[in-house]
């Protein structure tokens, strides 16, 4: 599989963290630690997503985006990753055409979700989420298992969508609760357990949805 995501980040440890996070959801990545090199790479090669640090040696993230635009390079969508809190900087990044903006320190789960979100928006032909023979279509709200429709409650649908988006990443019961029932739901996390049980039964995913000790659930599926 050729690399589809370019990571421009000069701090080795953070670059590897981003790489590991994205590999979890099945992506192949390349790391570049210098702004100028990143620019050269983007001129030669095509990627689906650029994770871009603002503070880069050689050429900073903003300069890089301006240079790409000036050179007429068809750049991939950009997810800015920066420690700068300044609203001015955020606005500048988004003005330059960045898709999204994430502040350091960040949680890998969130990075995964945002990266997936951008990728889905840009791969129109591949709008659905698929894993292990199950396909979820967010627009028609249909779920197919091996081509056969499966009846899911709205909560089960949202749970499935979360698990598919964050495949191979454990999600806490609180996160799942928030996603499926909203922030102001007052019920306990046992509700999540009940609905996950039903989802496992309906999809035959007793093995695929793993219970993670002390945390929550994880969907284990190759991309």
């Amino acid at each position, binding site marked *: 599989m050729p690399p589809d995501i370019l990571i421009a980040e000069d701090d080795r440890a953070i670059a590897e963290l981003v790489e590991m996070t994205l590999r979890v959801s099945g992506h192949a990545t390349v790391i570049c630690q210098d702004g100028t090199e990143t620019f050269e790479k983007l001129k030669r090669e095509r990627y689906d997503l650029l994770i871009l640090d603002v503070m880069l040696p050689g050429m900073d993230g903003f300069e890089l985006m301006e240079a790409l635009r000036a050179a007429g390079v068809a750049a991939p969508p950009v997810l800015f990753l920066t420690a700068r809190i300044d609203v001015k900087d955020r606005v500048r990044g988004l003005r330059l055409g960045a898709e999204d903006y994430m502040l350091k320190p960040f949680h890998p*789960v969130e990075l995964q979700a945002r990266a997936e979100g951008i990728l889905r928006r840009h791969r129109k032909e591949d709008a659905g989420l698929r894993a292990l023979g199950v396909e979820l279509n967010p627009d028609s709200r249909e779920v197919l298992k091996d081509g056969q429709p499966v009846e899911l409650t709205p909560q089960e649908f949202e749970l499935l969508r979360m698990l598919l988006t964050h495949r191979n990443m454990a999600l806490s019961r609180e996160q799942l609760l928030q996603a499926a029932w909203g922030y102001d739901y007052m019920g306990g996390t046992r509700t999540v357990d009940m609905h996950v049980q039903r989802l496992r039964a309906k999809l035959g995913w007793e093995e695929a949805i793993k219970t993670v000790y002390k945390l929550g659930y*994880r969907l284990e599926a190759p991309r």
Partner: protein
Amino acid sequence: MKLFTRILLLTLSLALVFGAALSALTLRRAFLDNLSRELERGVQNSGALAASLLSGINAYAALRDGDAAPRAARISAQYLEPGAHFALVDAQGVLVFDNFDGQTAGVMDRMPEAAGQYRLVRLPGGTFQALKRDVLTLQGDYRLLYAQRLDRVYRQMEEQTRGAVLLLVLLCLALGALLFAGLKASFRPLRLLGKAAGDIARGDFSARAPVIRPEDEVGRLALRFNDMAQATQAHVARLTEQDQAQKRFIADMAHELKTPLTSIIGYADLLRRHELDEERRARALDAIARQGERLERMGFKLLYLARLEGGQAPALLDCDAGELLEEAALAFRGLAEEQGVSLLADAQPARWRCDRDLMLALAQNLLSNALKASAPGQRVTLRARQAFLEVEDEGEGIPPEHLPHVREAFYTADRSRSRQGAGLGLALCERIALLHGARMDIDSAPGRGTRVRVTFTGP
């Protein structure tokens, strides 16, 4: 403007009092002169009248005229001055003649006691000189009662007084106007000074008082005031700059903390949520450990800096320069070897008065920077002399545009900081040098290397 009013009123009233006193004295003197002249004239006139009466009575008597005295009096009365009246009384006290009228008859009752004397008589109709004279004729003794109006003198005095008062009032008005204008001009610099002070109080520290007459008191005050304003402005500017530097420091620190924190939080979260394979798991744990240590180092340096900023005087003790150098170098021997850099410690016998821990931290920070800048095969030299401590490398050097800033906390030559560390080292070294009364000079050229020398200038 109270002082203004006070000076104006005080000057005006003084002028008024002096003017009034002076004119009163002059007027009084003129009046008295006038009066005595008039009285003298009265005496002379009455004398002349007495003489004409005497000769008249004697003459009429020689003509054997029985009514000699009244006739002589009637004749004399025709030549009287205006305002003069008289009466003639014979030896038996019988009134022979009088031409007093209703208004003036009262004078007769208030004649002086003795002949040849006069007195002033004040009646509702006017003031008179009352005079008694003997007219000793051949026919017998008569007594002349003479009264002369003095109204002219008094009227003159009144007129003069009125004139003087009017003049005084006019003078005071003129003086007031002149004073007002003069004082206003004199007080203008004070008012402007007050305005400048107000501007400064409202936060405009660049406000200055105009110095209109530098030689007078207000001018000198304005000069002093401006000196003070200058000092205040400079002080405020310094404080503002310090405040901004502090804010920058905190912002930089927050930013600098985020890089290691991102790794620690991120890897920990990844480990918790995902089953990483053995190799990645090890790398994640390694990253957490290394970034944790980085945070710890930064914490130590910040702690040092904070303590040094507190201005606590270091404990200066006598210590051997060579030993200190060896200890500093020892910690970096391993790293230097790994990098293929040769580390030289060149110490001449010397003893320094210093805080050993701080000086060691200084030397090690300089060494650490030198090693970071060096490439394999190059040399880092650590030198100690009685007058200085020096670290020299042959590494990449500092670009000239960065040289003025490298001592600032969190400043790194490269805008991305991850490879160079947080940029606290030189800031720390500088503080330590200053606390020892030492000077830190950085001599660097790109491509030729860097030499940092700490020169002890104190005793």
